[in-house]
């Protein structure tokens, strides 16, 4: 396991692939919002 530093300037045209989002109303997530698939957590398998 190692660490290296990568500097990314999000203001540069090369670094940004899309415009920032419009201002949205923030919602506090509820457990009902968590889908069965997210519940199962398929993003990191097999520790």
């Amino acid at each position, binding site marked *: *396991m*190692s*660490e*290296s*530093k*990568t*500097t*990314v*300037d*999000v*203001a540069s045209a*090369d*670094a*940004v*692939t*899309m*415009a*920032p*989002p*419009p201002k*949205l*109303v*923030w*919602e*506090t*997530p*509820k*457990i009902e*919002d*968590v889908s*069965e*698939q*997210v*519940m*199962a*957590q*398929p*993003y*990191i*398998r*097999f*520790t």
Partner: protein
Amino acid sequence: MTYAIDSLRAPLLVTWQLTRDCDLCCLHCCTDSAPGKRLRDELDADEAMRVVRGMVDVGVPYVMLCGGEPLVVPHFMDVAEALGSAGIQLKIETNGQRLDARLVERLARLPIRSIQVSLDGDTQAVYERQRPGASLAKAHAACRAIRDAQLPLEITFAPSKLNLHEASAVIERARSLGAFRFNTGRLMRVGTAARTWGKLAPSKEQYRAFRAELALQERVLEPAMQFCYLPFSIEDGLRAALEQPPATLLVLPNGWVKVAAAIPEICADLRRETFVDAWRAYREAWRCGPVRAAIRAAIEDESLHGRANAWQVLQVIQV
């Protein structure tokens, strides 16, 4: 483009790897875990409780505690109880080697959505080939203790050349143990698995047969037991994530926050930043050109996943 994550004050799920340490040294491990592999800079109990408070304050609804093996962490129960007493729903991932009735009794007081036990074989010989030194009897006993306490049991199966011939038996075992979900997918070429890939990786034909078996068993056993195996591969998951990044935060044992499991980029450090700032950094990372390029590269070339644990800190410059 607007992402769904931009409208959320907090992630839906935080996956928290409490430690890299483990009491087993599994050949397929995606986190490079093994005995003595605790990182020197892992969060201590006080720091972990500060992270807990951050999650509670921002309103995270669901946290998965994993590792390594989370049960080897001395402050595991303190973290679980602090999260649970604040109403955060929990999933615990364990190898089941040290989950006894006493511990299950404490966990049963918490809002547990799932306790996931790894069963990577249905005979001791096959199970132990993939999980050297592990006891299948202990894992089964842990599963029975979970069910005896009326807690939700989930089984995960890491497919490999070593164990695929026992996949059907493990599914049947999961059903007979009373599991509510069977969780699997393509083996991840990350961590220890990247180094043992030649020994473990199933062939295309083996995967084809496995998926056919999963589809068949799903038709027979659902809804009594759910099947979760999609997205089947990391690449499928990353492709979907580029379109709509998942509202999930992956916290490493030292408090760093990873953008996605299969790439090395780190977007925040919970030792130095608040949870709110870490969530903001994660959302920004998905708009960051180099991160998106790394994800596209990982979709194109599976061998790059082997670098995912050589973490790289992104320093996103605000203007």
